[in-house]
């Protein structure tokens, strides 16, 4: 009776409210253990729910894709024709690169020992839950050993490696970025999708050299002097920073207008990024609009991710190539 008098509902509520105020003021770290526990509790049964929801999303997208207008069909046919030609050109280029690569690897193997086929280790994983509130675009993935900051790619594109793609190709070309691990513990990790408002990453915009008969003229700076030149593969890439727009894609702000970026240009991760070690496709530029503040100088690029994020299910987590060794005896 005495305990019942002391632990009244009013006092419990007051204590809980005080705890909430304290946790709010202390910040995200104060609630981290609770969040980890919640992920562990939700992950196993949540997997089934996510399987259903991603399957439904996948079928809906497929159904929507089937009903396209005639104009769009014609456009796609034309695009297909162009892509077939481009693929043929790239295949030739690739064959040349493979031969060169084989020669380099041959030399490297003899000089330095066994060559690595990939610059990064990857951890296969799948999405088991999403965020309960729609204000952040994150997913919970089942993963063991994924470090914070590790980048995540779609899995289906990586399966190319299983069927024996040539060495080094799988990493460089056969994947699409979907986001980054922001929080990780024993069995689960939180994946921040690249469309999230606070997602940002250094990228390179690869300007596609489309039609040699109608060359794209760009401005290049040589020793501080501006010069008009035809776009070629030699200077097709420009560095930029992309961030999620909180909706369906990404934005790249502050790109010089004279770079003449156009819809269709490709956005890739930077190959010198220590977290990846390879240029992984991120998305495609779908719209270029003048900057709000300085419309004559800069443009903003809108990028549509290659990965289908709505039905995202299976992913690969890229472990940074140069991962620092843990201190201590490692046990």
């Amino acid at each position, binding site marked *: 009776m005495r305990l019942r008098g002391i632990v009244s509902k009013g006092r*419990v509520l007051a204590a809980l409210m005080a705890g909430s105020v304290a946790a709010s003021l202390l910040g995200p770290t104060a609630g981290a253990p609770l969040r980890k526990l919640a992920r562990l509790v939700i992950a196993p049964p949540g997997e089934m729910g996510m399987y259903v929801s991603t399957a439904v999303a996948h079928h809906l997208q497929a159904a929507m894709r089937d009903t396209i207008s005639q104009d769009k069909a014609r456009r796609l046919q034309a695009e297909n024709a162009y892509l077939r030609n481009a693929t043929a050109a790239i295949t030739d280029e690739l064959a040349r690169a493979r031969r060169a690569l084989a020669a380099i690897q041959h030399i490297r193997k003899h000089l330095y020992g066994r060559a690595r086929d990939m610059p990064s280790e990857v951890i296969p994983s799948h999405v088991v*839950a999403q965020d309960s509130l729609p204000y952040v675009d994150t997913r919970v993935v089942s993963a063991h050993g994924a470090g914070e900051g590790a980048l995540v790619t779609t899995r289906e594109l990586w399966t190319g490696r299983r069927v024996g793609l040539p060495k080094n190709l799988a990493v460089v070309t056969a994947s699409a970025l979907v986001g980054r691990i922001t929080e990780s513990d024993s069995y689960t990790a939180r994946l921040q999708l690249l469309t999230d408002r606070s997602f940002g990453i250094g990228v390179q915009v690869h300007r596609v050299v489309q039609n040699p008969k109608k060359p794209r003229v760009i401005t290049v700076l040589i020793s501080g002097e501006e010069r008009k030149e035809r776009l070629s593969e030699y200077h097709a890439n420009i560095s930029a920073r992309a961030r999620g727009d909180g909706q369906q894609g990404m934005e790249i702000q502050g790109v010089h207008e004279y770079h003449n970026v156009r819809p269709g240009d490709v956005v890739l991760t930077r190959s010198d990024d220590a977290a990846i070690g390879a240029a992984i496709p991120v998305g495609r530029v779908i719209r270029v609009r003048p900057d709000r503040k300085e419309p004559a100088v800069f443009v903003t690029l809108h990028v549509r991710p290659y990965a289908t994020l709505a039905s995202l299910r299976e992913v690969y987590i890229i472990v940074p190539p140069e991962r620092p060794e843990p201190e201590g005896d490692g046990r």
Partner: protein
Amino acid sequence: MRWIALAILTYVLTLLQTSLVDVITFRVPGVGLVRPELLAVVVVYSALHVGSILDAMLAGWALGLALDVTTGAGSGVSTAVGPMSLAYALGAGGIYKIRGAVFRDKVVTQCTMTLVFCISAHGMWILMQWRLAFGDTAGTGIVLMLVQAVLLAAYTAAIAPALALGLKAGRRWLIASPAGPRRRR
């Protein structure tokens, strides 16, 4: 309030909220994701029907905490744990206070109360995260997030009567001593 039943219901709804609700989530151009918020319906329903304001606020706090711990955290998307449980507890208390002026079982009441509750609780959560500003999210697109909250509230209000029907069916397992005329004095 039957707390074990509430705990089970909270767990099940949180599971649905973090997985299957994705099926009925929309991307509104220029705004972002909009999805219903199932737990808010339970808070409103319990606040309209429980016997005391303490029960209503405790239920609100528990359901708010479930949302708090299943939403984004970490570098880049840092949000504090606590604001949603506070907002839900206060919102539940507010609904309890004004319930005497409305017909509790009417569909219009369910919709209106859910709309008001969601706008106030989510608005409070967004503003608190923004003021606390622990991560990039807190300061990014505050207006868009508030618009998202209004759309979420409208969506939740639209589905609230259907969920309330289910809660009404299981009312005696959820609420120990429903509000209303007492049988014994």
